């Protein structure tokens, strides 16, 4: 049998998913999962080496083929998807040990991998939608594995992402109408008029998957309700990779737009708003996982902003930030999971001084936290600098400022988190904790290592993984220079470093005001006059358009119930039954059992018949 190698990343996870169902012992399942993810990772690695391949099989007809295409960029995405999967699975062998539904968990994980690989490789929009939609279902099932409340969050994610997917579908249909083709790599349009609407619809699908505002609401809820491995696996890494991958594909290949075109402004605005609002929410969180989840939203803003600039530097920075973010955010979620595993909670109030007892976790957290804050020389610094530069080049300074504001509060909130959890005084509220075993630590160490490597030697990931995205765009490549990230002394870099200093100052002040309690460090900002009201509204989910939408629909259904349903019901309940009863009563009274009555009806009937027949015959003749 001759199976094309391109099918391996899709078929292998499926095989592992199905076979895993037949395993009995928990240990065996864990080994099986690690083996499976390693196999798929190897397969992705081989494909990454091949770089160019394609496969077209007839599928549904009408231009809808089972069309897979591998090129530099999606080979890199494919590789990273599977690296994260492998690390998360390795981590899960310890973290999910207590779960009673481990079999289901791995089934969904492998199905997710299958769908993710499929949507990365797909070169036909219908096939792509097929895989993309599958992700929605596995995400729902994975969140359902969490605590008792998780079904609500799962539903929320399903509806929000379902909405995004619906927009995506509409966009694809529109695109099909405009271009007449469904082959992704064959479409190339200027984003104007109808094509712009199609682009915006597909963009909603992409950034919704990545978790940008206003489609982010499920992520903070899921941080509490869903297993932490699911958070590290999907919202932190895979969904960012996929969402930004799609955004890159449509912004670079499928559609074209110029710098500062309307599309570009829309993207940058969405990005800037996402950065600022999400980071402000993140700042005041008192739960580690929830804080991380808001950052997962905020960082998407940087990527969208970067790609939206339309400048070479911005685009490369956005894509690079996607990769970096996936690395350090997964690392951060894994470290939060490690803390949860050891201490049993992730509430900052209860934790403190864990550095001594959990040095590896603490160290990895520190590296990742410095990365996300954009401290030199970690990877976050490089990609953020590129985005700052790119947005500055557009001439709209406001977006750059938004990005800087984001940087301040990002660092401030991580100072707060690190200070209250790992440093500072030892907490008395939790028992003595111990460092976790190696399957938990290894993924974090690897990820932290990547953070440092990609920061110090940033040219390596850029050349290997990011630049292939720009293949076919020589004009962009020609303009790119990577000298800026080594020279720390340009004004933009200096301003960003100034931001970090401001953040440090804010934190210092906050801790002082909170009488040394680090988890209260953000309270001064929280309690600012106008901002406090906004925060209160946000905490009460006034801005959560899902909750508001649910309220609106409930109201609407009530209105319809009272204005439409009840009156109709009244007609049935009262008018119809009462008239029916009256008719039946009359008929019953007529049937009183008197022979004479009955006879007279029959005779009257006969006469009427004779008369009617006579008239009818007269009419006819």
């Amino acid at each position: 049998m001759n199976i094309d190698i391109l099918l391996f990343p899709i078929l292998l996870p499926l095989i592992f998913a199905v076979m895993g169902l037949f395993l009995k012992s928990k240990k065996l399942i864990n080994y099986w999962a690690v083996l499976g993810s390693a196999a798929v990772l190897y397969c992705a690695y081989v494909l990454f080496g091949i770089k160019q391949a394609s496969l077209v099989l007839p599928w549904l007809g009408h231009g809808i083929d089972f069309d897979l295409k591998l090129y530099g960029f999606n080979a890199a995405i494919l590789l990273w998807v599977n690296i994260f999967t492998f690390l998360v699975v390795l981590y899960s062998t310890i973290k999910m040990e207590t779960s009673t539904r481990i079999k289901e968990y791995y089934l969904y994980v492998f199905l997710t991998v299958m769908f993710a690989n499929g949507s990365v490789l797909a070169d036909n929009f219908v096939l792509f939608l097929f895989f993309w939609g599958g992700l929605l279902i596995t995400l729902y099932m994975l969140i359902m594995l969490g605590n008792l409340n998780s079904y609500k969050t799962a539903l929320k994610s399903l509806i929000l992402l379902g909405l995004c997917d619906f927009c995506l579908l509409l966009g694809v249909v529109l695109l099909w109408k405009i271009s007449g083709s469904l082959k992704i790599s064959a479409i190339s349009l200027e984003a104007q008029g109808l094509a712009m609407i199609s682009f915006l619809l597909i963009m909603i699908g992409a950034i919704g998957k990545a978790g940008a505002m206003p489609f982010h609401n499920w992520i903070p809820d899921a941080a509490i309700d869903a297993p932490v491995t699911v958070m590290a696996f999907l919202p932190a890494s895979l969904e960012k990779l996929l969402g930004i991958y799609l955004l890159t594909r449509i912004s670079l290949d499928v559609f074209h737009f110029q710098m500062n075109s309307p599309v570009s402004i829309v993207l940058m605005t969405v990005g800037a708003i996402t950065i600022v609002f999400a980071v402000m929410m993140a700042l005041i969180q008192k739960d580690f996982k929830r804080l991380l989840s808001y950052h997962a939203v905020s960082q998407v803003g940087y990527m969208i902003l970067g790609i939206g600039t339309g400048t070479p530097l911005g685009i490369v920075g956005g894509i690079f930030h996607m990769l970096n973010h996936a690395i350090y955010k997964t690392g951060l979620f894994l470290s939060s999971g490690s803390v949860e595993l050891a201490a049993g909670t992730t509430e900052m109030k209860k934790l403190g001084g864990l550095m001594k007892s959990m040095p590896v976790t603490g160290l990895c957290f520190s590296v990742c936290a410095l990365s996300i804050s954009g401290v030199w020389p970690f990877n976050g610094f490089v990609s953020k600098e590129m985005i700052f530069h790119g947005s500055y080049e557009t001439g709209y300074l406001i977006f750059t400022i938004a990005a800087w504001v984001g940087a301040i509060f990002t660092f401030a909130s991580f100072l707060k988190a690190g200070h209250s959890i790992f440093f500072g005084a030892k907490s008395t509220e939790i028992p003595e904790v111990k460092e976790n075993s190696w399957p938990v630590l290894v993924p974090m160490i690897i990820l932290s290592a990547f953070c440092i490597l990609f920061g110090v030697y940033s040219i390596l990931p850029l050349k290997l993984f990011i630049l292939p995205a720009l293949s076919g765009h020589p004009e962009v490549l020609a303009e790119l220079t990577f000298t800026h990230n080594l020279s720390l002394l340009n004004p933009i870099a200096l301003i960003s470093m100034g931001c970090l200093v401001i953040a440090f100052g804010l934190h210092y002040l906050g801790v002082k005001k909170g009488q040394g309690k680090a988890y209260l460090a953000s309270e001064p900002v929280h309690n600012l006059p106008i901002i406090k009201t906004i925060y209160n509204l946000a905490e009460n989910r006034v801005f959560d358009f899902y909750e508001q939408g649910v309220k609106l629909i409930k109201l609407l259904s009530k209105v319809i119930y009272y204005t439409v349903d009840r009156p109709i019901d009244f007609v049935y309940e009262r008018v119809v039954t009462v008239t029916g009863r009256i008719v039946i009563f009359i008929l019953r009274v007529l049937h009183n059992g008197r022979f004479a009555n009955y006879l007279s009806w029959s005779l009257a009937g006969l006469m009427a018949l004779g008369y009617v027949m006579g008239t009818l015959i007269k009419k006819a003749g």
Partner: protein
Amino acid sequence: MVILFIILPLIIAGLLPLLGKVSKKVLPDFLANAVFALLLGYSFNFAWNASAGKTILSQVNLAGIPLGITLRLDALSLLMLFTIALVSLGVGIFSVNYINQEKYSSKPIYYSLLLLTVAGMNGIVLSNDLFGIYVFLEIAAIASYALAAYGLGKEELEGSFKYLMLSVVATSFILLGISMIFALTGTVELNGIASVLAYSKAIKIKYLIGICSALFIMGFGLKSAIVPFHSWMPDAYSKAPATLPAMSSGIMVKAAGLYVLIRLFYNVFGITPAVQTVLMYLGVISIVVGALLALGQNNLQRLLAYSSISQIGYMVVGFAIGTPLGFIGALFHMFNHGIFKSLLFLNSGSIENATGTRELDELGGLAKKMPVTAGTNIVASLATAGVPPLNGFWSKLIIIIALVQAKFYIFALIGILASVVTLWYFLIIQRRAFFGKLNETWKDVKEAPFWMSLSSIMLALICIILGIAFPWFIRLWIEPAANVLVAGIIR
């Protein structure tokens, strides 16, 4: 030997009271059911002949000397014979246990009345002359008056008397109609009348035929309980032994009423728009009035009687459309109704046998005690209401499609709405008799005896099987019969 259909039940009916002196129960049970089974099997003998469209006209001889009686066996009469034999077999098997009740005196006489009814009905559908029809009509009718009064209770006698009186009025009008036809054409043979009428175009004759039509519609309409000639039916049924309404509503109203009407109008007089219109309206009124009246009833058999009136309305409407599809729907519904309505009446007999009452008020929660009765009753109820995939659904569907095809949209709508009402009152029966809280009085109630259950199961199975295999059944039995009606005036 077409005559066997009439002679065999007649002879056994005569012999049974004599044989009853020898064996009071076993022999009558066996003989009567053997006759029904034989008739059923014998009707298959002609099935291929009839489905090929052949008509058998057989002159009756007495020892080689021809008598002035011809019998006519075509696909339409064969379908009737088949239905009669099938339903009467079901009723006969049911009677094996049912007539053992104390209030019913003599089993041999009961069976001979049943056989007489069957002989009468077979005679009606086989007769080729109007007078023969009249004679057999009276044979069947008088036997059924006796059956209606068989328990000799006060209300049974009253119901039977009403039945008798109204029927007498009907038959006298029928006789009047027949004599007018005879005066007009000089013959009572169906093909004779048909050929004479076909050549007379005078307007006076049209009027006279119109009057005869009115008389026949009234007379046979009363026999088939079309509103407003329906009033005998509920009274006659409410107290009679359950087997009488099963026979009467299941087949007699069709053989003695509807069959003769359609035979006369489509095959002898030739259908006119006037008759079609009248029948259509009568049918729709029957559907509505019957369904509404059924809703308000408390006595199970009375309710079923009104339901029969409503269902007969469907058949009348189906025939009145006059299109091939309408004929198929109406004939199929005729057969189906024979099966499920007799099953419903037999179920009420089972209930009465077990509890001694048919009043819905006094029943309740019997499903646990009588699973077979409850199960078969659900099947029959759903079939009557026209719930897929049971046989009643298809026949009603065909009628309604035929109505829509012929552009009678309002009537189609009424037909659908009435079937909703039908479902409604059958659900009421289910709730009040079989489900809900078990009435404490019936906690020792037992399932119906073997033969009663067997007969119910047999009929319910036919409902289910026909619901699935209806295309086969329509091709073999219904379509040839419909073709006889489509072919028009006989020669």
